[in-house]
């Protein structure tokens, strides 16, 4: 547990929860990132303004952090492009079929005590743990 960072995790987590609550109290929307982003891909949808604004705020956060000297390092990803593309496709298709991701089900859904979201979170955590166990320990990735 050498990498455990509970204090920053608690502060960051509280900010994520605060954002989800504020978005609901102010605009009546669920802060589910896959749903907000997915809604932008449907050309006929009319409620695009708030979706673009939310995602813009999201992408602005690390840019502003960079201005005050806390720039975000590029994320460390696998070298294999096939894995990156497959993972992206699975995340995109899976979150739409399952109706949400870590934020929509994990934070907002469980936050509303929704049985559906609790089930979804248990399922995606389980398959993710199995995937990591296979890639890191069986295949030695």
């Amino acid at each position, binding site marked *: 547990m*050498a*990498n455990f960072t*509970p204090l*920053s995790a*608690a*502060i*960051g*987590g509280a*900010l*994520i*929860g*605060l*954002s*989800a*609550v*504020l978005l609901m109290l102010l605009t*009546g*929307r*669920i802060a589910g*990132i896959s749903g907000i*982003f*997915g809604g932008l891909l449907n050309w006929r949808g009319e409620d695009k*303004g708030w979706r673009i*604004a*939310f995602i813009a705020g*999201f*992408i602005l*956060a*690390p840019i*502003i*952090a960079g201005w005050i000297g806390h720039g975000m390092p*590029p*994320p*460390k990803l*696998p070298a294999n*492009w096939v*894995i990156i*593309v497959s993972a*992206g496709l*699975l995340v995109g*298709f*899976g979150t739409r*079929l*399952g*109706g949400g991701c*870590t*934020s929509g*089900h994990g*934070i907002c*859904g*469980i*936050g509303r005590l*929704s049985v*559906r979201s609790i*089930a979804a979170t248990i*399922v*995606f955590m389980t398959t*993710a743990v199995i*995937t990591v166990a296979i890639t*890191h320990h069986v295949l030695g990735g």
Partner: protein
Amino acid sequence: MWIIAPLFCGLIFGAGLLVSGMVQPTKVLGFLDIFGAWDPTLAVVMAAALAVSVPGFMLANQRPRPWLAKQYFWPSKSEVDLPLVTGAALFGIGWGLVGLCPGPALESLATLSPGVIVFAAAMAAGMAVYDLWQKSRLTVQRGSPLAGASDG
């Protein structure tokens, strides 16, 4: 001016992911790697987020409508069904392969990392495939004799 509200919420959400370290796939994979050097950070992030969102949503539930909109858009489905379980299972596999879920993936676009751009494009493609599949399924249903009969 209302557009400031979602922008501000997005900023706070992004700041939360940054501060908690969840934008870094290594941190996320450290949590998912329960058979390796397990890093429980993600569990603390979720617990802290829920400590705020559970009472916050209860408060929202008691108010007749949001401050800046006509109505709440609470999700309407409540039952656990096959699409939910299948979708969540596929999402988990993709998440475990790379350590990126939609939030951190979109936020990481700010770094202009080629890997993240490819991941986000593939994610959008996966969503588009789902939308197309849904659309074709609806068309087939509408065209089938059984559905036609029920439509009168």
